[in-house]
């Protein structure tokens, strides 16, 4: 990556996500233990931690793909409850990119991008297609718009998935291990797109093990283990002077190669 963003170089705005005393169980298993997290507008947060530590579950709670049992989550002033209207309102504001892309295989790349614009935003088809093409250009694959997802490489599919989320003009983007299902040579094309997003001031929460990305882009790195936030800090401090033993162990394991 050539672009380097100085941490804190962008002025951070008001709180956009506020998580208070969040607890979640899968049956008997306590996945998230008393999580408190505030995210400011324009903030770029990288969440890392060993597998099973609850990182994915945490960001999936933010657009209620997972239901939490205790605590409160407020996104852009909307409290997440059972109320389906509130849930849909939040989901319109929050884009999500999945590890396995989850593109709709029966629709073309362009149709993948316009589907929600047409059926959620009730937008005319032509206008929706213009917006979709704009974002496909931004992720540098406008020429693939008429193809089906199965005809694209993993990296291209993930870029389409990012464009599909961006079409809804979200205020927050959630990334759930966006590069872990990709071949090594395709990781950078996806990370480049994400860096570009960060430069434009998008609020991002990203679960990833790409520590180079975290160093360059994040203004906060969060380390989770066993359902708790163990440590959080600015990337320089986080990587160079980790405070907690578990953080040190984790970093030594993923950085030693």
């Amino acid at each position, binding site marked *: 990556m050539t672009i380097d963003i100085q941490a804190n170089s962008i002025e951070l705005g008001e709180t956009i996500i506020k998580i208070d005393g969040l607890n979640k169980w899968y049956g008997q298993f306590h996945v998230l233990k008393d999580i408190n997290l505030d995210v400011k507008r324009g903030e770029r947060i990288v969440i890392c931690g060993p597998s099973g530590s609850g990182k994915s579950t945490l960001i999936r709670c933010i657009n209620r793909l997972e239901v939490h049992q205790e605590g409160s989550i407020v996104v852009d002033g909307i409290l997440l409850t059972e109320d389906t209207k509130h849930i*849909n309102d939040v989901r319109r504001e929050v884009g*999500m990119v999945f590890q396995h892309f989850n593109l709709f295989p*029966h629709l073309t790349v362009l149709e993948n991008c316009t589907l*929600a614009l047409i*059926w959620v935003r009730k937008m005319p088809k032509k206008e929706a297609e213009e917006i979709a093409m704009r974002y496909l250009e931004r992720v540098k694959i406008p020429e693939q718009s008429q193809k089906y997802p199965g005809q694209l490489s993993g990296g291209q599919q993930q870029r389409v998935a990012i464009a599909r989320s961006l079409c*809804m003009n979200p205020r927050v983007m959630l990334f759930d291990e966006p590069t872990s299902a990709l071949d090594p040579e395709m990781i950078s094309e996806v990370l480049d797109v994400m860096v570009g997003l960060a430069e434009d001031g998008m609020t991002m929460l990203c679960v990833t093990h790409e520590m180079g990305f975290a160093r360059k882009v994040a203004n906060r790195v969060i380390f989770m283990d066993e359902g708790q936030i163990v440590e959080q800090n600015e990337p320089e401090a986080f990587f160079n002077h980790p405070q907690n033993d578990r953080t040190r162990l984790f970093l030594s394991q993923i950085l030693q190669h």
Partner: protein
Amino acid sequence: MTDRVRIPLHRDPKARAIAIQLIALSLVVYGAYSLFQTTVGNLVARGIQTGTSFFDEVAPFNIGFSPLLDFKLGESTYIEVFFIGIQNTILVSILGIVAATVLGFIVGVVRLSPNWLASKVALCYIEIFRNVPLLLQIMFWNFAIFLPSLPAPKNSIEIGSFYLNARGLHMPTPIIDNSSGFILWALTLALLTFGLFIFARRAKVRFEETGRRLPVFSINFFAFVFCGFIFYKICGSPLAFDIPELGRFNFKGGGQLPLPLFSLWFALTVYTAAFIAENVRAGIQSVSHGQTEASHALGMSRRDTVRLVVIPQALRVIIPPTISQFLNLTKNSSLAVAVGFEEIVAVWAGISLNQTGQALIIIAMTIAVYECLSLLTSAFLNWYNRRIQLSEL
């Protein structure tokens, strides 16, 4: 230097394949030849003349139910019996396929419902009707349920000019009373249909241009029914109705849906729907949960997610095995013999064969009919299947 390595013939896969195929082919040819010889020999020994000459003989029995082709006792010939048999087989198959598809789809979706009770009811339905032999089910509905619970013709249940009794449903049939008025009405209906078609096209264009949607289906449906009725009155009510009347023993006039047709249709529907429901369940479950999550994450409603994301993908898994169920239903309609519905096996391979003794040709023709129906059905559905399957490499 040798550029080819010699392989002994019995280890050369190509030579082995040719040898095996030659042996198999000669066995099949020998089998067919000896079958033919035996048949011809037996026919000659018994002095049976095979041929199609009996086609034009008058059939000495009555056929009670034939909605489209006319049958007159003492005038109609055997070949007409054959076509009436085909007609009735096709009729009950189409009715059964439509009903079984609708019911199967509903049960399959309910089976996956998060509601515990609904899901278990669907499960019971599937396990009961899938596991009991169809012949037993047909006889159960006809002889144990419908026949005893419906009254004799004298005490028919009366709904308007419709009469329901143990022989079936008697109903009025339309007769063209005023032919110029009828033609006028038919023309206005054709124009109306065309107009509504144009409207639907316009509504689609408008949706793509402005994003606003109209309930096209309900508008068209009510417009068709309402305007159709108004035009009917304007054209001077060109239809008269032949209303069934109770005679000494039975109803005269009007049309009749015989009880055996209903029992057969009902049994075929509930039996086949159980299998289709399982196909539907498997199809929906084959769509990965990630697809639903991605759609929800975009803010799509549950209904739009099912309609635009899940069902189109599930159909690709649902259709191929469901084609087999349609074919099964068509072939299973031959069990009508048990309740006396007059489809091809009952009237052609049954009564006609007994009367004429022409087993060879009659059985061959019956086989050919099922073969054709099955091939036509699967050809049509395979075409449809290819159309929806073209994407996704």
